[in-house]
């Protein structure tokens, strides 16, 4: 299988605005490799650098040193303009569907936005059909096209966020705690949807979560992060049955219902 994205010795520091001499090392020497069609999980407690890593990999923030290689091209030094063609293929879904959708845009405009920018469609007249098609993929219907985000529940909003990402036909999707803000019965629906997309479209997914049972269900491999470093990695079945690091054991023992 081809490698879709990998990072080599990725490092990200944040400079504190009031104390310019003090820095926080959010990601240190991160080496991650994700193959085509693979679902990879990142677990760790808050502040361990999971989300920073997601932002670095999608180049929403600049990295200090190291390399990000997407489909054999080094994208770590590209500026925003050069980055544009890659943005289509690297899509993000955020934790909170209440703040990640523009409240003043209708659903069809929200989904069409990316399609227009990345010129996914040759014929702009086919837009409506295309948008509807994407919407149906995530389990919403044509009645929802003209609604605003406020008309939807949390789970449905997260579906819209996923539809937005899917609309530009990405090769790789980063999901940053996509189910943490959702209710129990809705979580399962979204997880199933992600799994379906992975099966049908061969989409590679980086799934960030602190819920180990969800990661175990969805992911093939998992990386455990602590204080900006990856301390353990491997197949889910191995890590969860036989954790080596004390920290992983602690994380496992604090997730219940096993």
């Amino acid at each position, binding site marked *: 299988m081809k490698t879709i994205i990998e990072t080599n010795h990725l490092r990200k520091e944040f400079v504190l605005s009031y104390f310019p001499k003090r820095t926080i090392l959010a990601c240190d020497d991160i080496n991650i490799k994700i193959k085509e069609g693979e679902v990879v999980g990142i677990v760790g*407690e*808050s502040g361990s650098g999971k989300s920073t890593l997601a932002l670095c990999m999608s180049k929403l923030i600049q990295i200090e040193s190291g390399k990000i290689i997407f489909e054999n091209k080094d994208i770590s030094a590209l500026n925003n303009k050069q980055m544009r063609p890659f943005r289509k293929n690297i899509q993000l879904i955020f934790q909170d569907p209440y703040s990640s959708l523009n409240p003043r845009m209708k659903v069809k405009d929200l989904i069409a936005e990316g399609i227009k920018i990345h010129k996914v469609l040759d014929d702009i007249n086919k837009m409506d059909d295309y948008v509807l098609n994407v919407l149906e993929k995530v389990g919403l219907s044509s009645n929802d096209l003209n609604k605003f985000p406020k008309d939807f*529940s949390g*789970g*449905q909003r997260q579906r819209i966020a996923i539809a937005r990402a899917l609309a530009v036909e990405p090769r790789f999707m980063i999901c940053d705690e996509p189910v943490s803000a959702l*209710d*129990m*019965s*809705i*979580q*399962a*629906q979204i*997880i*199933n949807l992600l*799994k*379906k997309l992975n099966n049908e479209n061969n989409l590679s997914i980086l799934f960030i979560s*602190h819920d*180990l*049972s*969800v990661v*175990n*269900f*969805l992911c093939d491999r998992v990386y455990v992060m602590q204080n900006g470093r990856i301390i353990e990695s491997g197949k889910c*079945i191995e890590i*969860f049955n036989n954790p080596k690091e004390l920290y992983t054991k*602690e*994380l*496992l*023992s*604090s*997730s*219940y*219902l*096993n």
Partner: protein
Amino acid sequence: MIKNNILNLESISVRFSPHGPDVVDDISFGLEKGEIVGIAGESGSGKTVSMLSILGLLPQAIVKGSVKFNGTELIGAKNSILNKIRGKRIGLILQNPFTALDPMLNIGNQISEGLIADGCSMDKAKIQAINLLNEVGVPSPSQRIRDYPHQFSGGMRQRIVIAIALSQNPELLIADEPTTALDVRIQKQVMELIKRQCINRGMSLILITHDLGLISNYTDRVLMMYAGKIVEDSPSQKIFKDPLHPYSKGLLDCLPKLNDYNNDFLTTISGNPPQPNEFPSGCRFHPRCNYSKIDCQKDGHPPLIKYKWGRSGCIRVSELF
């Protein structure tokens, strides 16, 4: 009901406007001394509203029914009576430790505030505050007592909130999602602290949460709420193996298991939880239920009936479970 119940709710209903829908509809249960009860349910199911309204903390809510705390009626009681109970005999821990504390007061003042109001001298209150901090596991309490909330991490702040709740030695503690804002590792420490304190002090606990993991590990009994109704009342040991309501069963099936390695899809409950103004007639769960029949849509929501080891709000319980 049994004599030594410390809290007794009888057909409590809560609505927010005179002609509005009942957000909490006709719930009744009793709480024994020293018992740890979990209230579980999705957001909007009325878990928090039911508990806050019996304490008179929701001034805009219209509450019907009766709540007896050790024989004292709480619904419609004057503030002068409620003030002798709230904080003193019923402690409350809120969800978010980042907003529950006053950022302008040091934590020593915040812990001893209630003690001083109770007639304790300043010096004694301070010693008491240090003891409490020690008890909830804040390191070097005699120095940290002068620190302000922003100098503490989330887990430590929640410990301080717990110390405040414990300061008056309450008989009942209501914890409203005490660990939702905290990390998984900290969550375990905080829950173990709460449970230990309950056992040491013989305190009863009502734990409001949406996390079934917490329910399974820390409670004796669980009340499952759906759309303002209690749908199941079972011992926690039982509900995870043999649920007595299709909703509880559905929720448990939704959860991915850690030792489950077959790559099938999760079973889901279709649809969304209903909003209060669009509660369906009959059983409120019937539109999402796999087992619903025509009888389920008739009349009001079925009352809780005794079945096996608990109570269930499903009319088909004896057929299904």
